[in-house]
Structure formats: structure tokens, C-alpha cells
């Protein structure tokens, strides 16, 4: 009898708190988005599953000795996991389009206005009772506008670990929602004629240029913004391994097994931050709202910048490609291509959008570095 009672006391049924149930439903929702809707499944599946595991009563996944506790400590607290993802993404990224047309970096710069406007917005929210975002919090939230998962996780782990779960979930969710968020804004800010603009074909890029590119990016970052070198440096390392052509076995491993292993654990660790007490707050609502605003502003400022460049520049630019400047690689570039095809069925913008797309990755890494340097990392 006594052991039956012990057994009952150790069931989940006897220990659930309402918050845990809600958070498990949130986890199930993320799994639904990942599996049924195929929204960023590589991260939302492990995040959703981690959210379920961390909210299991008694089991103690995220308490000292629990497996998610160790994974978080080793991978997120140290900042190592997002950096390894960045190395892998660097090894997966082809910068040809950007090297061929470096002016596209301006679009990647403009789209970061989503970040800085959101930072301002987050502080504005402090006028609403219940919100008390510090500048660090606001910076970590604003980075959602960078539309880059590992950058968001890296910055949040440094500036606002308590908000990490909500920030990461918002970042990946909105990245998945890019095909829904971006097209209306793109169409609102452009005319049918502008969307029909065809761009001239990109010149081929030599191997030497591709090898020198990551080194040049790293050099600039070292000179002007060392705070961004963890992110940019690992990214450039991955890209150099890819383009140098002399360490193919390392590059392949960084692109596949290593990034896969880290992705599983990163997702679980982020999910482990989705505990009821940290997530079920009014701040999460604010973060979700601000994230949507950030994406919208980023898209808009990218498009407007492209319009300005087309007007004042030497060669015509289809303003749609500006929307790819938020990053969200390669989803945003695909959306540009799709919206472009709707206006002109012979207009393939994909390659042209890859330039601003990868520029957006650099841009948000630079923005993250600035936020780290100015709000104190």
C-alpha cells in the first residue's frame, strides 16, 4: 500500500502545475508547426520537444543533474553551440552573388533598421504597465529582427538569458512565417512596373575572390568591431574551409554531421528554457509582438533602400530583392523569387536575392556586435 502511495506521488498526474500543462501545449504547438506545416522543422522540432521535456514534473530535465541542464550549460551558457552552427552555416554559404555585386550589402544594411527600430519600440513598451525591459533586454529582443537564429540565441544568451526561450521561439517562428509576413509589405511598397524589373546577369566569380572574401570580412570586423568577431569569425572560418578547397573533409563534416549534432542539442537546450515561469509572462507577448514589428520594418526598409538605389544608382535594381536583406536564408530569397515571378513570369530573381540575403546575415551579425559593445556584453 505504502509503495502504491509512493508510486502515485511520483506520477505526473499528482504533480502537474497548470503552467506546465500550458507550456507542454506550447511545445505540442511547435511540434505541429514543425511536422504538419514544415515550419523550420530542423529547429522547431527539437525546441518543441525540449519544451515538453523541461515541463515534465518530477523528472527534473532542467535541474542540476538533468540531461537538458547539462546540454544548456555546455552549449548555450558558453555560447559554443550557436557559434558552431554559424561555422556550419558559413561552410554551407556561397557568397558568389554578393562578391559579384557588392552593392547588395547596402540592402543587408538597410534591413537591419528592423533591429534598431524594435530596440526603440521595446523601450517604448515600458510605458505600458507590466513591461520593464532593460536596454539589454531590449537589445536581445530587437535582434529577432535580424531574422537569424544562431545570432539571436548567441546575443540573448549574453544579454538576457531569461528571455532566451521566448526570443529563440519568436525568431524561428517568424523566420518560418516569412512567406506570409513579407509579400503584402513588398507589394504595398512597390508598383507592378517595379516588380517587373529584370536585373542583368551576375558575372562569374573566381576561386581566388571566394577565398579572399571571408578573410576580408574578418579583417574588417577585427578592425572596426571586434565584439562581432565570435559570430563573424566562426562564420568566416566555415566559409574559408569551404572555399579554400584544401580541407574538404573538414568542410563536409562542418556542413553535415557537426551542424546536425549541434542542431539537435541546441534545439533541446533552447526548448529547456521554455519553462512556465519564464515563458508565461506578459513580456513574452511583448516579445512576440515586437518580433513581428521587427520583421515588418526590416522588410520595408530593405525594399525602400532598393528603390532608392535603383533611382540614384547606375544600374536598375528590382526593389523586391531588398526584402531578402533581412536574411532568413534561403526562405526570404525564395519569397522574392516567387513574388517576382507573379509580376513577370520570365523574371528569376533568386540569384539576385541571394546577395542581399547573405548580406543580411553579415548585417545582423554586425548589429549584434554593436549591441554587445554598446549595452555591455
Amino acid at each position, binding site marked *: 500500500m505504502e509503495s502504491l502511495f509512493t508510486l502515485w506521488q511520483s506520477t505526473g498526474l499528482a504533480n502537474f502545475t497548470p503552467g506546465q500543462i500550458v507550456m507542454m501545449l506550447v511545445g505540442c504547438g511547435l511540434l505541429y508547426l514543425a511536422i504538419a506545416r514544415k515550419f523550420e522543422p530542423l529547429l522547431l522540432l527539437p525546441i518543441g520537444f525540449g519544451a515538453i521535456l523541461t515541463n515534465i514534473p518530477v523528472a527534473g530535465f532542467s535541474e542540476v543533474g538533468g540531461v537538458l541542464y547539462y546540454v544548456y550549460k555546455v552549449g548555450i551558457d558558453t555560447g559554443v553551440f550557436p557559434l558552431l552552427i554559424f561555422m556550419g552555416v558559413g561552410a554551407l554559404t556561397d557568397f558568389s552573388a554578393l562578391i559579384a555585386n557588392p552593392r547588395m*550589402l*547596402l540592402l543587408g*544594411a538597410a534591413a537591419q533598421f528592423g533591429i*534598431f527600430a524594435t*530596440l526603440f519600440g521595446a523601450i517604448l513598451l515600458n*510605458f505600458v504597465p507590466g513591461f520593464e525591459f532593460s536596454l539589454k533586454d531590449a537589445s536581445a529582443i530587437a535582434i529577432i529582427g535580424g531574422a537569424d537564429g544562431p545570432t539571436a540565441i548567441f546575443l540573448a544568451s549574453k544579454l538576457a538569458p531569461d528571455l532566451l526561450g521566448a526570443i529563440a521561439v519568436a525568431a524561428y517562428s517568424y523566420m518560418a512565417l516569412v512567406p506570409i509576413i513579407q509579400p503584402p509589405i513588398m507589394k504595398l511598397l512597390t508598383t507592378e512596373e517595379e516588380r517587373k524589373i529584370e536585373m542583368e546577369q551576375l558575372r562569374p566569380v573566381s576561386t*581566388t575572390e571566394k577565398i579572399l572574401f571571408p578573410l576580408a570580412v574578418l579583417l574588417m570586423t577585427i578592425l572596426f*568591431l571586434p565584439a562581432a568577431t565570435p559570430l563573424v569569425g566562426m562564420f568566416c572560418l566555415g566559409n574559408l574551409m569551404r572555399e579554400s578547397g584544401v580541407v574538404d573533409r573538414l568542410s563536409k563534416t562542418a556542413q553535415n554531421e557537426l551542424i546536425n549534432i549541434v542542431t539537435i542539442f541546441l534545439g533541446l537546450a533552447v526548448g529547456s528554457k521554455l519553462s512556465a515561469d519564464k515563458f508565461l509572462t506578459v513580456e513574452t507577448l511583448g516579445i512576440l509582438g515586437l518580433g513581428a514589428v521587427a520583421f515588418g520594418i526590416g522588410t520595408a526598409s530593405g525594399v525602400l533602400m532598393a528603390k532608392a538605389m535603383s533611382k540614384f544608382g547606375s544600374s536598375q535594381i528590382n526593389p523586391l530583392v531588398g526584402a531578402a536583406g533581412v536574411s532568413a536564408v534561403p526562405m526570404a530569397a525564395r519569397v522574392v523569387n516567387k513574388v517576382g515571378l507573379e509580376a513577370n513570369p520570365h523574371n528569376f530573381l533568386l540569384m539576385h536575392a541571394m546577395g542581399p540575403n547573405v548580406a543580411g546575415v*553579415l548585417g545582423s551579425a554586425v548589429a549584434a556586435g554593436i549591441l554587445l559593445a554598446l549595452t555591455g556584453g
Partner: protein
Amino acid sequence: MAVTEQLLEALNLMLTGMGFVFVFLILLIICIKALTKFAVSIDTRRDDPVPSITPAPHAVKAQQHGTPPEVVAAISAAIHQYRKQHK
């Protein structure tokens, strides 16, 4: 800290940050243009300018020939063997 003071700081951060992003990426544009010239000068000095101003060689191979020669060789051998076995 009062919210207004925070707001001023945020505004400051917004302007400085956005400005810096632009400055940085404009410098990077200049840097890439210099890099391209440098790369051309290196490649011409190596006396094989034509193939180097094209995409990476392995990419070309995969796109142009469709099937790499080793695979063709392996399959040729397999077909040979197959025919021998099925005579």
C-alpha cells in the same frame, strides 16, 4: 532609470547602431571591390586567367558533364560484367 532617459538612450543606440552598420558595410563594399582587383592581378600573374574567372572547378564539372567520369567508368565496368553474366 526613468523611461524617458531610457528612451533617449535607445534613440541614441538606434542612430549610432544603424549608422555604424551602414559605415561598416560600405567599407566592406570598398574592400570587396579592392579584393576583386587584387584577385584578378593574382590570377593573371599565375598565367591562367581564363579558368580562374569562372565558378569553382568542381561546380563546373558537376554542372557541365552531369555525371562524373569515375561514375561512368564504374557503371561501364558494371555493365560489362552484367552482360558477361547474362549471356
